[in-house]
C-alpha cells in the first residue's frame, strides 16, 4: 500500500440536527452516506455530547440503507421507526432495519464508553474498536444506550478521520473485489500492522 493513500484522510464532524425535545426521545446522529462510487476506510471515530445533563453511554453502528438514507434529509432526533421503542423512550436499540456495532459494546457500567461523566463534562468516547471499511451507501450511526436516561436538548457530535476511496482503486486486492461485488453484505474488519 502506498503511504500517499493516508494523506487523503479527511476530518469529518456530524452533529444531531435538532436537539431532543423531551426525555422520551433519545438523540442520535447519522453521518452522511458513503458515496455510491466510494468506500470509506475509517481510521478514527469518536463522539461527545455537549449539552447532556447526565452520564450517557454511546455506541456506533455501521448502517445500511434505508436507515442510512436518513442522512439525505436529517430530521433527527424525531421518532424514527428504524429504531426500537420502549414504553417511555424512542430511538433505541436494536436498530430494526439493520446495523452492526463497530464500537466496543457495553452496558451502563462502562467508564470507557461514558460521556458526560459526570454530568456536564463534555468528555469524548472512542468509537473505533478496529479499523474498518464502510461500503457504498452505508452510513455511521451513533445511539445512546436506552438505559442511560434521556433529557431535553441532547445532541451527539460525531467526529471521524476517514479515507474515501474510489471503488476501482486497489486497497488490498481481495478487499477491492469484495467491495465492488454485490453478492453479500460487505463489512470487512481486519487489522494487521
Amino acid at each position, binding site marked *: *500500500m*502506498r*503511504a*500517499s*493513500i*493516508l*494523506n*487523503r*484522510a479527511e*476530518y469529518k*464532524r456530524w452533529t444531531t440536527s435538532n436537539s431532543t425535545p423531551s426525555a422520551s426521545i433519545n438523540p442520535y446522529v447519522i453521518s452522511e452516506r458513503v458515496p455510491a462510487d466510494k468506500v470509506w*476506510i475509517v*481510521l*478514527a*471515530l*469518536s463522539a*461527545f455530547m*455537549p449539552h447532556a445533563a447526565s*452520564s450517557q453511554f454511546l455506541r456506533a453502528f455501521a448502517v445500511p440503507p434505508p436507515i442510512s438514507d436518513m442522512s439525505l434529509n436529517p430530521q433527527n432526533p424525531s421518532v424514527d421507526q428504524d429504531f426500537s421503542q420502549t414504553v417511555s423512550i424512542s430511538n433505541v436499540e436494536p436498530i430494526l432495519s439493520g446495523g452492526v456495532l463497530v464500537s466496543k459494546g457495553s452496558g451502563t457500567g*462502562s*467508564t*470507557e*464508553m*461514558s*460521556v*458526560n*461523566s*459526570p454530568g456536564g*463534562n*463534555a*468528555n*469524548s*468516547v*472512542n*468509537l*473505533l474498536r*478496529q*479499523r474498518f*471499511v464502510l461500503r457504498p451507501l452505508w452510513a455511521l450511526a451513533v445511539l445512546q444506550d436506552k438505559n442511560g436516561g434521556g433529557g431535553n436538548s441532547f445532541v451527539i*457530535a460525531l*467526529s*471521524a*478521520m476517514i479515507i474515501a476511496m474510489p471503488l476501482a482503486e486497489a*486497497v*488490498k486486492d481481495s*478487499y477491492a473485489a469484495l467491495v465492488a461485488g454485490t453478492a453479500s453484505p460487505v463489512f*470487512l474488519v*481486519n*487489522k*494487521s*500492522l
Partner: protein
Amino acid sequence: MSFCADFYRRIQGRRWTGFQGFILNKAFAVSDAVPAGKVWIFMSLSGFRLSSASSRILHFFAVPPADAGGLVNLGADGTSGQFTGVNNNPPLKSGVLLSIGGGTGLTDMQSLGGSSVNGVNLPSYLPEGWKVLACIDSNEGVTNPTPDGITIDAALIEVATDECIPDLL
C-alpha cells in the same frame, strides 16, 4: 505485500514537552505537525505529568490541519483557541479521539507524579499537517498553586508518501 522486520528499524522515539508551568489553566501538550509529504505510523503513544500533587485524566486527540496550524505549545500559562471550554477544557473545536474514552473513573488514563498513560487505542496513522494533542479531562480542576504540564512520547515511523507501507487493513 510482505515486509521485512528491517522496516521497523525505522521506529524513532519522539518527545514533545508542553509548557510545564500551568497553574491557572489546564495543562496540554501538542506534537509537531506531520511534515508535508510524510505520514506517521504510530507504534505507540503515551503521555505523562510530572506533578505529584494530584492525578489527572489525560485524553489524546488527532487534530486536523485546518486547526493544527494554530495549535502550539505555549510559553506561559494561558489558553488555546482549540478548546471550546474555559481554561483549556474540551470539547475541541475539531479533533478525533485516539485514546480510550470516558471521564470519571477512568483509572487507566490517570497520570500522577510521572506515571504514563497510553495515548492510542490501536496502531494509528497521522497524515501530513495533523498533530496530536494531549489534554486534561474537563471535569478535572486546575492545579493552582502547583505547576502542571504534560509531555507526549511516541514511537513512530515517518514514511514518505511515495513509499509502500504495510496494509492498514
